[in-house]
């Protein structure tokens, strides 16, 4: 968790109600200055509501939002002029690309020459200088999103609020756009809040992550920690942790789950105490024979599902069901089919331990 002195944006005791029901309920949340905070969570978890509150378009039922320690709603227009936003839809106005990018500066009363220079700079940074004179309606989805992001940077905002800006773009275009965005944001370093449901995006762009479920913060950590070391079972399920096993600690760093003995270097629970053990499917490796490494056990292949670059294998070992994502090339070398027996391996460092109710 970031210290308060680093927090650029702060949320305190925030509740937002819709139809008398709390859709967002956050006790405390800090967005560190100059870093990218990714907000992740399932549909309806309150991600976009949080962004709407930070944009001052949704009004909190209670609580405070501060920017540099000052209430954001004291002068909404002034606050918004320190920020900018981009969404899944590019939301360009019916004017030329150049005029769209200049618009935030025009609204701030910036002179024509400065506006033009700034727009030219950001159009070049996003590789769309040649589109400057094109009308916004004549752009492809990827081009329009680049213009939208260039516009967001043009006013050199202290805070950048982004709601799934890469979600509406096709895969190859998206890759290039994320790459360019990552480079630009690392140089410009605005305090960024990025709402996303995409794991790769969160891992590539996020310095810090907030996971919301049911309008509440369930975990704040580095993105990799949320995906590899979820705080609880609900988080584990959301981040695609396919293997969550109920177990019990039997000795120091060793757990029993479904009749299998598993070692973990993760935090420990009390001896004899119940725990949830979890591991991501891509962290389980399969082999024909065991070697000297820890956490190896024999398992029978129950089902095989090709999933693009990996093969998802469902296996059973004793009372333990496990799911492994094996790269296609490795799977082909193994030559396993349903009913075959294999050796499953989990590195102790990859086995995460969570508290479980008694």
């Amino acid at each position, binding site marked *: 968790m970031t210290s308060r002195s680093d927090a650029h944006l702060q949320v305190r005791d925030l509740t937002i109600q819709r139809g008398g029901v709390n859709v967002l309920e956050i006790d405390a949340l800090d967005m560190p200055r100059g870093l990218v905070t990714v907000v992740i969570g399932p549909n309806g978890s309150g991600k976009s509501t949080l962004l709407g509150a930070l*944009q*001052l*378009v949704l009004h909190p039922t209670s609580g405070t939002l501060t920017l540099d320690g000052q209430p954001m709603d004291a002068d909404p*227009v002034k606050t*918004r*002029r320190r*920020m*900018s*936003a981009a*969404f899944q*839809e590019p*939301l360009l*106005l*019916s*004017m*030329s690309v*150049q*005029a769209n990018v200049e*618009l*935030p500066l025009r*609204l*701030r009363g910036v002179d024509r020459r400065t506006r033009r220079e700034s727009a030219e700079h950001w159009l070049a940074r996003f590789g769309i200088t040649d589109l400057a*004179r094109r*009308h916004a309606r004549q752009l492809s989805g990827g081009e329009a999103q680049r213009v939208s992001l260039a*516009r967001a940077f043009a*006013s050199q905002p202290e805070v950048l*609020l982004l709601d799934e800006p890469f979600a509406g773009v096709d895969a190859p275009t998206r890759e290039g756009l994320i790459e360019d965005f990552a480079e630009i944001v690392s140089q410009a370093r605005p305090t960024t809040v990025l709402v996303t449901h995409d794991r790769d995006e969160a891992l590539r762009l996020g310095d810090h992550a907030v996971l919301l479920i049911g309008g509440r913060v369930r975990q704040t950590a580095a993105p990799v920690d949320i995906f590899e070391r979820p705080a609880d079972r609900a988080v584990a399920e959301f981040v695609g942790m396919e293997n969550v096993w109920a177990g019990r600690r039997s000795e120091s760093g060793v757990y029993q789950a479904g009749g299998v003995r598993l070692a973990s270097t993760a935090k420990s629970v009390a001896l004899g105490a119940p725990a949830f053990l979890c591991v991501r499917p891509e962290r389980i490796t399969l082999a024909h024979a065991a070697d000297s490494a820890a956490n190896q056990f024999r398992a029978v292949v129950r089902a095989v599902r090709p999933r693009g670059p990996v093969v998802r294998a469902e296996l059973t070992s004793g009372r333990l069901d496990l799911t492994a994502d094996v790269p296609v090339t490795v799977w082909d070398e193994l030559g396993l089919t349903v009913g075959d027996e294999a050796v499953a391996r989990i590195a102790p460092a990859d086995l995460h331990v969570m508290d479980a109710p008694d």
Partner: protein
Amino acid sequence: MELIWDGIREAARLWWAGDAEIIEITLRTLAISSAATAIALLIGIPLGAVLALRRFWGRGLIVAAVNTGMGMPPVVVGLIVALILWRTGPLGDLNLIYTPTAMVVAQLLLSLPLVVGFSLASIQSVNPRLIGQMWAMGANRLQVLWLLVRETRLGLLAAVMAGFGAAISEVGASMQVGGNLAGETRVLTTATVLETGRGNFEVAIALSLVLVVLAFLVNLVLTGVQQRRPVA
């Protein structure tokens, strides 16, 4: 048929000769209808924007009133304005009855609902997320209104055309509150009615053609602006 051809020939002669009375009536028509339309735009566009963007108690009632007003018979409007401005009426002390100002008021009441209705429909059709983006870019209230006007210019120019069309073409209200006084409140529509009544069809045709050409020219300019390919 001959009557019509004689009328058209006479109209052409009057135009060619630059008939002073026709020029005077034309200019007065243009001045009164333009003033009514301009005031209707000043009031109607912001009112349409408020009705499109805000939800408040009584909004539905106002929208229903606006929709009713869009089809209001001019003679009813004329009667209401005449009763209010009549010497013994609530605003009789202003001595506005049978003046161009009274005609502007009547035409304003006819074109205002059209401008409000068209503006409301245009602005309501804007993606609400685009309006959110306008706020997010740091626009203040006036700037959001300016951007909305810019964004809905096609629909708003239709509002201008409808408003101006309603003002310049109406006759009943102008007759009731203006009185069709020569040199004072006579406009193209009321003059056409008068000349038709007198059997001066050639003059009536000339006046009608002026009215049609005038309406066409104004709408030609507005259509040009509306259909121009926006660049910046």
